[in-house]
């Protein structure tokens, strides 16, 4: 197996990539504005539902049920889709999925496909693979279009162009579109996208989509969207190819009543998103008359094998965890070097890559202060901090016992394991107060220098609490 395209080749480890992003004033401002806007709105949308916590627990349980019997549900789903005239394909990895899409597109005689925004196809690098095979992929979601026209990379799972503000978007459109908008009003920009894509929708023969949910019992597929580009792709072309991660199932139709409440309020902070489409196989006389569904593994079974890590597969890609994350808010998504950035990316990407010797992927679980804001908002209650720590342990294991950090940690552990050694170290350390000026230390040698670059350290007191206790109470 080659490298998994879920991470971008050549991206440095998170701390280095973050440093560059932090210096980008425009990026910082755009992200702060967008994330703060959506945070307040999400909180309000969630407050409206008195049973929100019950819904989260149900969402968690439904997804756990699917994951614990994934083989059964996938077979059931496959049978239902097939019975209704769909064709089901299985893909072990990105290359295999891409190859299937390309083959189906060629068979339909198309040189261009229209695409609904989909994380699965972004993860497998489908657009690049199609291009290499002589097929053009046209992104139709506004934010994806902005990224595509800007020859840029996505930085958010819901709004991939979140790092761009309105005037930057106008500049991109002016460079790349025949009829570019004069104004940078969001309404005018949306109108420009409408004009730009209209002809493509009306003439497309093949569409490629992802799926938000698949219903195992009925074989129904659900796509949740806002702009109507999804409806265009799911309705007008003759051939529809849907790429769906194997974890996207729910057992039965009824279970969607949970997710159609959790998802819109968590993602765009709406009571309901403008459009949700549900279709089952092929409906004669209505919509595409050829339907192909590709079930994608690409590392998911590796994540499934990890007891502590598998909860990441509950994710419904709402992006709430990104929007509340203090790290994401400042570095943006591209610093994570993957189509899955932010807290969910920090636990999902390394699991899909499944190689802790990959320095970039192994740096992601450390891209968090463990503040817990992500867990608090996650509609399917993924304990992201817990998985982060679990993956850190895996990263440490992969690095072995001889790194300076491992040796320092071992030495410290040895000291802390014995109160006498601990007290002796405390006394020795307290001598550092002679380094202090005015009660503070402003420069320490490496690795302490990473702290003192921006922060003072309090001078250790002459007497620890322990010594005081012994002197006064002992």
């Amino acid at each position: 197996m080659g490298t998994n395209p879920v991470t971008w080749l050549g991206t440095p480890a998170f701390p280095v990539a973050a440093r560059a992003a932090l210096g980008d004033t425009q990026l910082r401002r755009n992200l702060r504005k967008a994330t703060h806007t959506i945070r307040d709105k999400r909180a309000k949308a969630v407050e409206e539902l008195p049973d929100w916590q019950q819904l989260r627990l149900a969402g968690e349980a439904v997804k756990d049920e699917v994951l614990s019997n994934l083989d059964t549900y996938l077979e059931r789903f496959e049978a239902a889709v097939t019975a209704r005239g769909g064709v089901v394909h299985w893909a072990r990895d990105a290359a295999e999925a891409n190859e299937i899409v390309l083959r189906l597109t060629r068979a339909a005689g198309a040189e261009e496909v229209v695409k609904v925004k989909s994380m699965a196809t972004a993860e497998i690098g489908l657009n690049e693979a199609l291009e290499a095979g002589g097929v053009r992929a046209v992104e139709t979601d506004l934010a994806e279009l902005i990224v595509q026209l800007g020859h840029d990379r996505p930085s958010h799972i819901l709004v991939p162009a979140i790092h761009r503000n309105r005037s930057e978007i106008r500049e991109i459109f002016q460079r790349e579109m025949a009829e570019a908008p004069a104004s940078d009003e969001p309404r005018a920009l949306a109108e420009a996208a409408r004009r730009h894509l209209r002809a493509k929708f009306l003439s497309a023969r093949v569409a490629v989509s992802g799926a938000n949910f698949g219903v195992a019992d009925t074989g129904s597929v659900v796509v949740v969207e806002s702009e109507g580009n999804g409806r265009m792709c799911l309705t007008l072309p003759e051939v529809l190819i849907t790429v769906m991660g194997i974890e996207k199932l729910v057992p039965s139709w009824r279970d969607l009543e949970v997710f159609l409440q959790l998802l819109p309020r968590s993602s765009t902070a709406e009571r309901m998103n403008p459009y949700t489409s549900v279709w089952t196989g092929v409906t004669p006389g209505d919509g595409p008359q050829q339907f192909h569904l590709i079930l994608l593994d690409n590392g998911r079974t590796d994540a499934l094998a990890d007891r502590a890590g598998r909860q990441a597969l509950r994710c419904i890609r709402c992006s709430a965890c990104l929007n509340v994350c203090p790290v994401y808010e400042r570095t943006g998504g591209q610093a994570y070097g993957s189509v899955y950035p932010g807290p969910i990316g920090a636990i999902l990407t390394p699991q899909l890559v499944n190689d802790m010797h990959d320095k970039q992927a192994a740096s992601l679980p450390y891209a968090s202060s463990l503040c817990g804001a992500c867990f608090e908002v996650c509609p399917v209650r993924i304990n992201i901090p817990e998985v982060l720590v679990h993956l850190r342990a895996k990263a440490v294991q992969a690095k072995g016992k001889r790194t300076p950090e491992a040796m320092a940690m071992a030495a410290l552990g040895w000291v802390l394991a014995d109160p006498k050694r601990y007290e002796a170290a405390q006394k020795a350390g307290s001598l550092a107060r002679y380094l202090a000026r005015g009660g503070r230390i402003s420069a320490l040698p490496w690795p302490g220098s990473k702290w003192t670059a921006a922060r003072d350290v309090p001078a250790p007191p002459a007497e620890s609490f322990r010594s005081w206790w012994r002197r006064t109470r002992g």
Partner: protein
Amino acid sequence: MPGAPRVGLFATCLTDTFFPATARAVVRLLERLGCTVEFPMEQTCCGQMHYNTGYRDAARPLAADYARTFAGYDAVVAPSGSCGGMIREVHPELHGSAPAFTHTYELSEFLVDVLGVTDVGAYFPHRVTYHPTCHSLRMLGVGDKPLELLRAVRGIDLVALPEAESCCGFGGTFAVKNADTSTAMLGDKMRCVLDTGAEVLSAGDNSCLMHIGGGLSRLRTGVTTLHLAEILASTEEEPWAPTR
């Protein structure tokens, strides 16, 4: 709890070593409220830094030590939300359940939930703002308890901290492994603190205070950081004085 509860003080290694005044304040406060406080000398550290950095095996014996050291107390009080969270939420996973883990309280929880007091008779005539700290807020769920305690303090001028629930960027080894991002978070936190015009920034956790305080000190802002315990221990007879 009938009679004077026998309380074990888990000072935490950071407070024991760098902020002894906080631990002394906890003793003074709890004794003033009628508790019998003991500091078992066998205690060292809860293992949080090891655990959170990925060195789980090094944290395991520390959890065992903790369970043994604090086995016989009615309650254990820790002046730290993050250590409290580590003990209550993670120690059972490392060591198996133990009474010492379930009986461990962060200071404000102990005061409000166990002792049932919000007015601890404190006096603190300064302008104060309060940072709730992530682990107290989201791991332990202490909610508004620290603020209830502060509101009852005489003489205090308590001002709300904007964006209070945002992380300060400490995150243990995160502060050095991702020093740039950590500093960016710290910068915003300091801006919010300075916007309040407070002279004292308080919190229930010296690790976050060391981080924010390290920044405030570097920039010579003149804002003092002070653990909640030290404000609550201060009285008219024995008011807080800035000494270390």
